């Protein structure tokens, strides 16, 4: 009888530690990218390299320069963060996880001006690409990826 209580506590501890370890912590990478055809000044970032081929096909540009980024590890799924460059900022507000995807409210600002507002279910298997305004001879492209 005296052994039963410690045994139960041990079983419960193991069960809860397994449960705690299974909670997924995922990182969402958000990048502000300028796509151009001008010669490369710096290497393409690793996050962009993964979908560089897709971006080339979509936009017809050959170079992708990262001007702002944010990497956020989601613990509760309800966090918010900001990816900024000198003139642009992307505000991301995560509204929780549903069916293997994060529901995100996105706001793209050009300085104080709200250019675009969108709500998306960002799947863990599928990046989101947003075509922003023309900047010089290039194009602002926003990419969100669950890593």
């Amino acid at each position: 009888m005296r052994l039963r209580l410690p045994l139960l506590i041990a079983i419960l501890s193991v069960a809860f530690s397994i449960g705690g370890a299974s909670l997924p912590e995922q990182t969402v990478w958000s990048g502000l990218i300028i796509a151009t055809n001008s010669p490369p000044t710096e290497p393409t970032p690793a996050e962009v390299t993964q979908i560089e081929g897709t971006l080339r096909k979509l936009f017809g540009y050959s170079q992708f320069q990262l001007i702002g980024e944010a990497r956020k590890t989601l613990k509760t799924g309800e966090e918010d963060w900001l990816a900024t460059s000198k003139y642009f900022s992307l505000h991301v507000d995560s509204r929780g996880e549903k069916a293997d995807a994060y529901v995100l409210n996105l706001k793209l600002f050009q300085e104080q001006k709200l250019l675009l507002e969108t709500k998306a279910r960002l799947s863990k298997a599928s990046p989101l690409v947003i075509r922003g305004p023309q900047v010089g001879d290039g194009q602002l492209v926003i990419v969100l990826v669950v890593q």
Partner: protein
Amino acid sequence: MALSNADFFSHQLRERLDRENVPVRSEVDAMQAGWWTIRRLLWGGITSLAVFAICTVLVFHDRTPSSQSQYLTQILEYRVDPTVSPNATISMFEKKDDHVTVLWVDGLQSLPPEYAAK
């Protein structure tokens, strides 16, 4: 041996008391020796709770996605401010080969090259 009156009544009384006490004792004994004692009920409850907790944890553990979802990202809502970008139009499409969802915004005001600054 003959009993006196007092002894007789005392004897009767003792016998009666004995008779009345026997069932009470047996009930107490049954409660202490039977299966559903308080202690066993308590342990039964604790064990049930433990089993429930373990099952719950295991079910949630199994439901945790081990691999990436096959579903594409979905655009649920989108909006541009017509006063800021009166000519803007938005379309969206999915590149299923590349597992990419695209929100294509046209007609935003073009900006000078310095806006490409980090």
